[in-house]
């Protein structure tokens, strides 16, 4: 899922200073599950932001709402009501949601309350790890299902660097070396010969190097 983190409170307060009536809008999907941007977090954020200590003058009026997904323009246009006196939306969605709201309610300013951080998986309650970069050219079938692009600090494609020490990455002793994990996973799968294959320089166009990526589902999506 997409993982996000709430921005520092002073940054959010500075962002909304100058607006008088703000809709604080949670998103009911990824950021609800990663406990950073759902309806509960939106209520909590509005409570915190209503404190006068954040502003030189009177605090703005904050209204709270939430919608299942902020990243679908037709859904938000049809089902998210924005009162005419609202002068900004503070979105707790990922960057995709913030931008979709901006398109749906143009010219109303839509401000991000979260930093969208990574595509992650939850290993245990309350912990999410980055495991995918969305590079558009998945090589997990060669690496025992462990992504060296997302999980190696240097995104190395042909084995570990010299900083791999006792199975840990040199950036932090608690971060396992991705290539150590790949080696032991392939060993368990009796697929160590996969490591003999040299991974040539990748074409990063699929990772966004050729501009914003678009997916059109044949038969349904209309390129226009």
């Amino acid at each position: 899922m997409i993982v996000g983190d709430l921005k520092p409170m002073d940054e959010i307060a500075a962002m909304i200073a100058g607006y008088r009536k703000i809709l604080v809008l949670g998103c009911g999907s990824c950021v609800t599950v990663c406990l950073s941007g759902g309806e509960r977090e939106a209520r909590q954020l509005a409570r915190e932001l209503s404190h006068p200590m954040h502003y030189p003058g009177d605090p703005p009026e904050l209204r709270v709402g939430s919608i299942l997904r902020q990243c679908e323009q037709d859904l938000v246009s049809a089902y998210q009501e924005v009162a005419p006196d609202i002068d900004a939306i503070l979105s707790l969605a990922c960057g995709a949601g913030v931008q979709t709201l901006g398109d749906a309610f143009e010219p109303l300013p839509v401000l991000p309350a979260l930093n969208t951080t990574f595509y992650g998986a939850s290993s245990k309650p309350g912990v999410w790890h980055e495991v995918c970069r969305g590079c558009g050219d998945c090589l997990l079938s060669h690496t025992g299902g462990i992504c060296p692009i997302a999980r190696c600090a240097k995104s190395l494609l042909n084995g570990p660097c010299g900083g791999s020490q006792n199975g840990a990455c040199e950036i932090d002793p608690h971060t396992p070396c991705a290539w150590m994990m790949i080696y032991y996973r392939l060993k368990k799968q009796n697929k160590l010969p996969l490591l003999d294959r040299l991974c040539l320089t990748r074409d990063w166009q699929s990772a966004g190097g050729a501009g914003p990526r678009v997916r059109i589902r044949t038969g349904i999506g209309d390129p226009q």
Partner: protein
Amino acid sequence: MAYFRVNQRCNGCLACVENCPADALSARDTQDHRTLLHNMARCARCGNCWRVCPQDAIEFQHLLHGDWEAVTTLDLLRCDVCNAPVYTAPFSETVSKKIQWELKPLCPRHREALDGLARAAYIPGGHKKEEVSS
């Protein structure tokens, strides 16, 4: 009350069933009737049904703001002093078993008052701290 609801414009064309990516919609035909079926456990609430419906018959707002459903009903215990609801009888039983002490149903305010009385009645030196030899 069902979460997936259609209005009177539904003509049973099954466009929603055909286009549901989660296989959460189905239809059952009998001799004289066609019944549209929805499975909430399968539904991804993606909105595809609502998008493709040529009759504009799907009331998707019920999948966004559904009603509350009762899940279970348990006996409730109330504060012995002020009658405020505190916790359920099975919860009291579970905790009492764990602490091996019968829990007295008291709200936080009256529990604190009771603790205060207990503290006031406590006589320091009633038991001696054991000396620790190095």
